[in-house]
């Protein structure tokens, strides 16, 4: 049947989600529904330049680097964060187009 508008827009021009959008957002929310991943996101969001290394994240939460790498991989796969290798370091930052939504979630 595909996506369809289920309701006319309200006075502010806001429309509710159709089934298709709801399914894709639900998938992202499942990826985020983990306390460690939320803690990682809060650290990335509050990093001075908006980017941080795996090592710093691991130190801050008292976790092993492979554990952090595993969680970051899930977040990258969903497009919530992005990784950028610079030399031997890998810098992690929030994806610019998802930043506002993630900051809301951490409020």
């Amino acid at each position: 049947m595909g996506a369809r508008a289920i309701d006319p827009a309200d006075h502010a021009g806001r429309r509710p989600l159709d089934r298709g959008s709801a399914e894709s957002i639900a998938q992202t929310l499942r990826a985020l529904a983990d306390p460690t991943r939320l803690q990682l996101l809060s650290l990335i969001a509050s990093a001075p330049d908006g980017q941080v290394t795996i090592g710093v994240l691991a130190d801050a939460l008292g976790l092993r680097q492979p554990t952090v790498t595993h969680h970051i991989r899930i977040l990258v796969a969903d497009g919530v964060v992005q990784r950028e290798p610079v030399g031997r370091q890998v810098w992690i930052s929030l994806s610019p187009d998802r930043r506002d939504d993630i900051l809301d979630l951490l409020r």
Partner: protein
Amino acid sequence: MTQRPAVSGAALDVAAANARVMQLKALADPLSLQVLSVAATRGAVQRDALNEALEASTSDLAAAIAGLSAAGLLESRLDELSPTPDALVRFGRILTADSRTAPPADPVARGALPPAIERVAADLGYRFSSTFAAETVHRYVGESYDLLRSRASISTHLPSLTARFAAERLGALATARGLVLAGTPEVLFVCVQNAGRSQIAAATLRHLAGTRVHVRTAGSAPASRVHSDIVDLLDEVGIPMAAEFPKPLTDEVVLAADVVVTMGCGDACPVLPGRRYLDWALDDPVGKDREQQRAIRDAIRSKVEGLLDELGVTPR
């Protein structure tokens, strides 16, 4: 070897992270998202309308509503479901189909809040006056208002929503600083239907005293629901109505109370030793015109302020 960059802010603590995980799990299901989305775009929605809009089975819908309610994202009042302030602030943006293109609301200029929101700031400033400076509370209320305004539907009760959101956050902050009061007095408000006067009094006392007073309500002949006028009447002055249903007056609720305030229920209220009884002579706002209702609301407020004085509940 380059210096490792430091992380400035503290990570979300485990309790806060777990609370959000619970909300995310409740919402990580397409039908639940659609339910909250319809409620958020309309401001409030009846169950029947939700059924029509979403073409889901009644049992699936009931499960989605129950899950969202348990996670503190959806609440029901007067037969309608509406998103909580938490839901709007944390998820409001992703709940509308066109949020990414909608321009953000302009932040309110300093000192230029609408009158009802100024009132919320003044009330909360009083309530938190020994914990936070009035300017801090004012800024906090202004920010809460901005957050909610840009995410809420037009039909939402914005002043009362702002008051609840700001009060919860300020309260949590005060608790985190170890400023909680022990020996909290319990006040019971009783009127005939528990649908008008007692609801106004209870909401006003909660608004002014926060967690420093426990508030309960009951009626000698409870109505089936709180009158919808009452919610509007309180919203005009930025006082949130708790999700309450009229409840019968039983010996147990009287037993639990330190102070019993009756408003026109007369002999129907059981008299138990050791309780303080007050009788407030007030007209029933239900069925009156709006001006008369406002006068009753304001009279209740001044009596509640007097009661707070008598209880020795001073601002923190």
